[in-house]
């Protein structure tokens, strides 16, 4: 057998967070990121040795600038968990949590973290210190609140729970911003009390100025997907470059990193060295990736010459491309707007309109949705989104399901078969000049 309906042979896979040749990635940025990740995890272990305070926080709408300004090291258990999944360690921690009584349907991030904690916190990439403070910075997911409560109970750390109002309007309402700002002041006073340090607004403004520069550079990178062919892979590659914008935001290092990324993207464009050599299908991707099978999943795209030109998941930390940038002139207000504007904190009408806009602005041919069993706050509604995109906007859309953390839910044969059929149908419809689009009903 020498051919499938797609004639482009699979390119060799880019690694994600591990070694090996990776033509899919930007070389300098990849090396820089590898160094930063290693330093981050060794820094966490060092903080524990030196008894420096450690805070745990969630990625969505996180408050890293404020927490760091009080001298805390910040752990993002979601990021630790996804790194465990990439390293094929997540199932071990998930099974440990299940042995403690957490059910099959509990979120994989939660079980990875609780299992890891009970096994002592040692991962293949470093030791994760125990928290001195738990900051539940996203309240849109009830499971997350319970996760943080479980950590507070088992580890004995104090918990600060932010109540982040769910967004039903394009721009955050004044009442919501005021409510968030009031909570931020309450939070700052708590940090002053816990650390004995006075809050330094001038320093926060300086940090936020750096955050903004990194955010602007990150947006520039993401918007490069508008070029044809796309010089970036806005899902698999962008997910890899999310680390600094979520974890190291506010540092000069993060600013430098995205400058490097953009310089390399520019070189890619000049040299015509695109992530998918022969771009055939431009996709908008919605949903969390299956970290346990990242390369396998990516290869299913490459085989068809499919490139992600825009994606929602790289914006879980913040919808910077919608203008929710930190602003040193309005420090707390802009932090509040940023937190309220986290992607999963948006109502479904906002999310679907955003995806529709991405399809138009990035000249995408289709939408691919990857739902995960673990996460109802991200995934519930994706079936309706699929139907809406097909029937109301005429956009070919495929819905797939597995999990981001639990490898037991990734069925490669089924996923590949659905993807092959979907790309076949796109190719067939394209090959007939007078092809009929999906009929709106």
């Amino acid at each position, binding site marked *: *057998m*020498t*051919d*499938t*309906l797609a004639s482009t042979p699979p390119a060799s896979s880019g690694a994600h967070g591990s070694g090996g040749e990776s033509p899919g990635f930007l070389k300098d940025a990849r090396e820089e990121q590898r160094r930063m990740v290693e330093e981050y995890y060794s820094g966490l272990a060092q903080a524990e040795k030196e008894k420096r305070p450690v805070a745990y926080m969630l990625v969505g709408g996180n408050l890293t600038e404020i927490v760091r300004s009080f001298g805390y090291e910040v752990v993002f258990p979601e990021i630790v968990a996804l790194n465990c999944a990439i390293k094929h360690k997540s199932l071990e921690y998930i099974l440990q949590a299940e042995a403690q009584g957490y059910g099959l349907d509990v979120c994989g991030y939660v079980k990875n973290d609780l299992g890891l904690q009970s096994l002592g916190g040692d991962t293949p990439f470093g030791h994760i210190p125990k928290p001195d403070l738990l900051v539940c910075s996203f309240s849109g997911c009830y499971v997350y609140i319970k996760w943080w409560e479980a950590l507070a109970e088992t580890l004995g750390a104090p918990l600060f729970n932010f109540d982040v109002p769910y967004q039903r309007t394009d721009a955050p309402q004044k009442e919501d911003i005021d409510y968030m700002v009031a909570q931020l002041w309450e939070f700052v006073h708590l940090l002053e009390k816990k650390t004995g340090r006075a809050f330094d607004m001038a320093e926060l403004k300086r940090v936020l100025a750096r955050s903004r520069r990194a955010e602007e550079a990150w947006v520039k990178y993401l918007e490069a997907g508008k070029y044809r062919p796309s010089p970036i892979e806005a899902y698999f590659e962008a997910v890899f470059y999310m680390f600094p914008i979520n974890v190291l935001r506010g540092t000069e290092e993060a600013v430098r990193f995205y400058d490097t990324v953009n310089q390399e993207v520019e070189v890619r464009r000049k040299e015509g060295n695109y992530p998918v050599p022969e771009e055939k299908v431009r996709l908008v991707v919605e949903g969390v990736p299956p970290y346990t099978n990242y390369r396998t999943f990516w290869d299913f795209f490459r085989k068809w010459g499919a490139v992600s030109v825009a994606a929602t998941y790289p914006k879980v930390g913040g919808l910077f491309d919608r203008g929710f940038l930190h602003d040193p002139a309005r420090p707390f207000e802009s932090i509040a707007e940023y937190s309220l504007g986290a992607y999963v904190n948006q109502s479904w009408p906002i999310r679907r309109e955003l995806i529709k806009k991405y399809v138009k602005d990035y000249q995408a041919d289709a939408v691919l949705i990857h739902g995960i069993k673990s996460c109802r706050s991200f995934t519930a509604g994706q079936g309706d989104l699929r*139907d809406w995109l*097909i*029937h109301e906007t005429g956009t*070919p859309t495929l819905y797939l*399901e597995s999990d981001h953390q639990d490898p037991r839910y990734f*069925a490669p*044969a*089924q996923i590949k*078969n*659905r993807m*092959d*059929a*979907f790309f*076949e*149908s796109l190719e*067939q*419809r394209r090959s*007939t000049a007078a*092809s*009929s689009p*999906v*009929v709106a*009903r």
Partner: protein
Amino acid sequence: MKLAAGIDIGSTTAKCVILKDSQVVASSLNPVGVNIVRDAEEALRKALAEASIDRSEVGFVTGTGYGRYKISFGQLTVTEISCHARGAHLLFPGTRLVIDIGGQDTKAIRVSERGEVVDFAMNDKCAAGTGRFLDVCAGALGFDVAEIGPLSLQARHPVKVSSTCTVFAESEVTSHVSRGKDPKDILAGLHTSIANRSLSLLQRVGIEPEVTFTGGVSRNEGMVRSLSARLGLPVNVSPLSQYMGAIGAALMGEERLKGGAAQ
């Protein structure tokens, strides 16, 4: 022009069809074992033998179904979703919706007026509502799967059978038997249960006539009747419905031959 062969390696059977000028001139059906390459070769050999066709007359072989990547002697692989759409469109050109119920998959495929896939939905992670479901339940009642369709049509008071799980359905059948229910009524309930589950998939892609029923389960008359009743629409079936994937595959090969891809 040379002939085109389509080989569909499913979870239960290997089907082969030989096309000449878009007409089926030979076909074969084999059970699938662990040696898929051998099963595929055997399917092709049997089909050729049936019509006394020499292998050299076949200019293009297309593989489809879950075992398609193992058909090492072919020139093209295509998913069974595209193939069932094309096959159904060839036999019933008015087809806009295909329901394919095979051994472990149920697929709802909406097709364009040219037989292209517009949208599709499949059962996920569960074989309830598939041919396997009927196999298991027929076994629990002591029938051969070929008998149960006609028997189900003789039901007088169909019982309700849930469709959540193939394994649990078997114990549900046993429970009905132990309560003295007529096996024909149980069989009718089983067929309705599959029709209900299929309807859910069909609704996801949008129900639009004409509906064509393909796959091994389409040979079951009781299932055709249940599905048609549940849809409120007539359902196209053909003696070749089980071969629809192989027909679509062969048709794509034939198009390649016309385009100069002869071997």
